């Protein structure tokens, strides 16, 4: 009798729609062309794939990256070029783009790539694969690449910038995702510039409204629909990466990008697993970058806020998850944790940072002028001896490269203005790094204010929201709180 019962149970289980339910993960990455397909994107995608493969549970991975399987050089890495004639650096400093001389193009080395991200190809593949999902399956879409902003103010036209300079807008992505069975929960992580626009995927017809669609969807975004994000460095120094992916997936992995232990435990509810929402909160509080990440539930709160509450009681400090994170970020940045002292300290620090930023920008502008002047002087002196050097992309230039290159480079190295040119170009490079650091510091201040605002929003929502609004919010939150 017992074996018969077991066979009956097995039969019922296999016939249920949840039998063979699978977690599908689409990892889409790469730039729109070789010069904008930076090594950081490739490195991020490789790291994410590695984490997904080692993470407990079974999941099917579908990876689309830049040119896909085509044998094209679709990634650019940058290393500081050597200051020698062999690397043509003297010639590059006088005639060309100093930085571009450090670029190295190669074919992507992402494992298990199934196709290109060319919009025409990707759209068809995604539609086909999405339509195969059945109830019980779960979908996760991770995008790591560039994004564009639509200046008509209609953020549903913000888009993913895909291979071959093609695009998929938030609105088009919504249409593609319509192929997914409404009973399949869909989660997404968009890390590109202006990513917040893809929050519309949870609303009917990707419209800018509060109501949610029928299906359970939620997501996480590196920035708002109006801001650029970090994560497009051609540098190969992984320790320098500060983008949303780096922090978000570090929380899921339990280790930082360089393998060090995490500074804080991301498992806020101590249930033993880090949910995507907890990973997002970890990134929000720990990242020292220019990104200001958002989740769909947070954007829902912002959308919900009635006009009569927008500017009221902006000094309130409710003690909820966002209030606590605001205090943590303030503490990490050496600021008072609350009260008017915090606001005064933020204003003072912002003023100081903006002053420094303005000074650096001014210096950068004047350096640009002097660099052009020095380049012009040296170019003039070279042109008097080797006129072919002034006509790139011509036969004269080929002759120059073949016959006079060494002599010309030695001439440049011995030029009286060359040491000044090198010093100024190096200073300009350092200024760019300093400006990035200042922008990151300013973002920390903005983040504290954003978190305080979210804390108030959450408090107001708990007091004033209608039953329908609460149901929508909890649907988003429970979707975000699922583990990987």
């Amino acid at each position, binding site marked *: 009798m017992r074996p018969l019962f077991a066979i009956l149970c097995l039969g019922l289980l296999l016939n249920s729609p949840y039998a063979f339910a699978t977690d599908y993960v689409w990892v889409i990455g790469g730039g729109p062309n070789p010069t904008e397909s930076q090594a950081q994107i490739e490195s991020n995608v490789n790291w994410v794939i590695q984490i997904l493969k080692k993470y407990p549970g079974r999941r099917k991975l579908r990876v689309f990256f830049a040119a896909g399987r085509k044998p094209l050089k679709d990634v650019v890495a940058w290393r500081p070029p050597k200051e020698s004639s062999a690397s043509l650096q003297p010639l590059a400093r006088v005639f060309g783009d100093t930085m571009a001389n450090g670029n190295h193009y190669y074919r992507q080395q992402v494992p298990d790539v199934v196709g290109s991200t060319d919009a025409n190809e990707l759209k068809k593949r995604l539609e086909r694969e999405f339509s195969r999902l059945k109830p019980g399956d779960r979908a996760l879409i991770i995008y790591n690449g560039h994004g564009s902003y639509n200046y008509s103010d209609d953020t549903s036209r913000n888009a993913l910038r895909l291979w071959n300079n093609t695009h998929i807008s938030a609105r088009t992505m919504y249409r593609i995702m319509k192929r997914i069975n409404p009973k399949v929960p869909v989660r997404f992580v968009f890390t590109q510039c202006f990513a917040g626009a893809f929050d519309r995927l949870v609303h009917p017809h990707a419209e800018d409204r509060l109501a949610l669609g029928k299906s359970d969807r939620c997501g996480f975004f590196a920035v708002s629909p109006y801001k650029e994000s970090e994560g497009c460095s051609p540098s190969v120094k992984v320790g320098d990466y500060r983008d949303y992916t780096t922090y978000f997936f570090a929380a899921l992995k339990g280790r930082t990008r360089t393998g060090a232990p995490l500074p804080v435990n991301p498992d806020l509810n101590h249930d033993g697993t880090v949910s995507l929402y907890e990973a997002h909160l970890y990134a929000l509080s720990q990242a020292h970058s220019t990104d200001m990440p958002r989740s769909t539930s947070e954007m829902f709160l912002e959308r919900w806020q009635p006009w009569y509450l927008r*500017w009221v009681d902006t000094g309130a400090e409710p003690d909820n998850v966002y209030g606590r994170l605001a205090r943590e970020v303030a503490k990490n940045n050496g600021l008072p944790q609350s009260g008017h002292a915090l*606001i005064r300290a933020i204003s003072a620090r912002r003023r100081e940072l903006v002053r420094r930023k303005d000074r650096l920008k001014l210096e950068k502008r004047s350096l640009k002028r002097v660099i052009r002047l020095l380049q012009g002087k040296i170019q003039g002196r070279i042109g008097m001896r080797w006129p072919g050097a002034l006509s790139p992309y011509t036969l004269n230039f080929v002759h120059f490269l073949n016959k006079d290159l060494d002599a010309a480079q030695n001439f440049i190295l011995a030029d009286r203005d060359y040491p000044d040119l090198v010093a100024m170009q190096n200073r300009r490079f350092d200024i760019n790094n300093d400006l990035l650091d200042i922008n990151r510091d300013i973002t920390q201040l903005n983040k504290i204010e954003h978190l305080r605002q979210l804390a108030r929003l959450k408090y107001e929502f708990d*007091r004033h929201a209608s039953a329908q609004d609460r149901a929508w919010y909890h649907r988003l939150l429970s979707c975000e709180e699922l583990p990987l």
Partner: protein
Amino acid sequence: MTESSRQGRARAWTAFLLASPFVYGMYIFLLFLFDTFAGDQEMLYEYSIQKSRRKLVMQIIYGGWHAVPMLYAVGLLLLLIAWALVKRLGRQVVVLTGAVGAACGLVVAGMFTGTDISAITPSVLSGLLLGCLMGWIACGIRAFGGT
């Protein structure tokens, strides 16, 4: 109706039409004061980061346009009260409608924006101002022989 009473009535209606946007502007200004001196200085911050400052001001004004019809409705009610009582109370009606307006502001704050001092004060002061303006308009109408 004499020429002066016709003119007086026209002025009163103009004052009535302008009162609500003026009170709304006053309300925003009070919120700005509280936000700047007792809050997170969000308005100043938004103002500093916006590329188009005119757009931000328009956004703030547009964001609360719903308030203006509400102010017209409350204003009309206060004007009717003032009109009904102005014969008996004379100029003292301004005090009465001011008090009723302030009470309305208190109720609206309690119902919608919260009970914190920075939420109540702008609402109550705006109600007071609206009430006083309506009382003053009623006095003006009476002075020009409108009642």
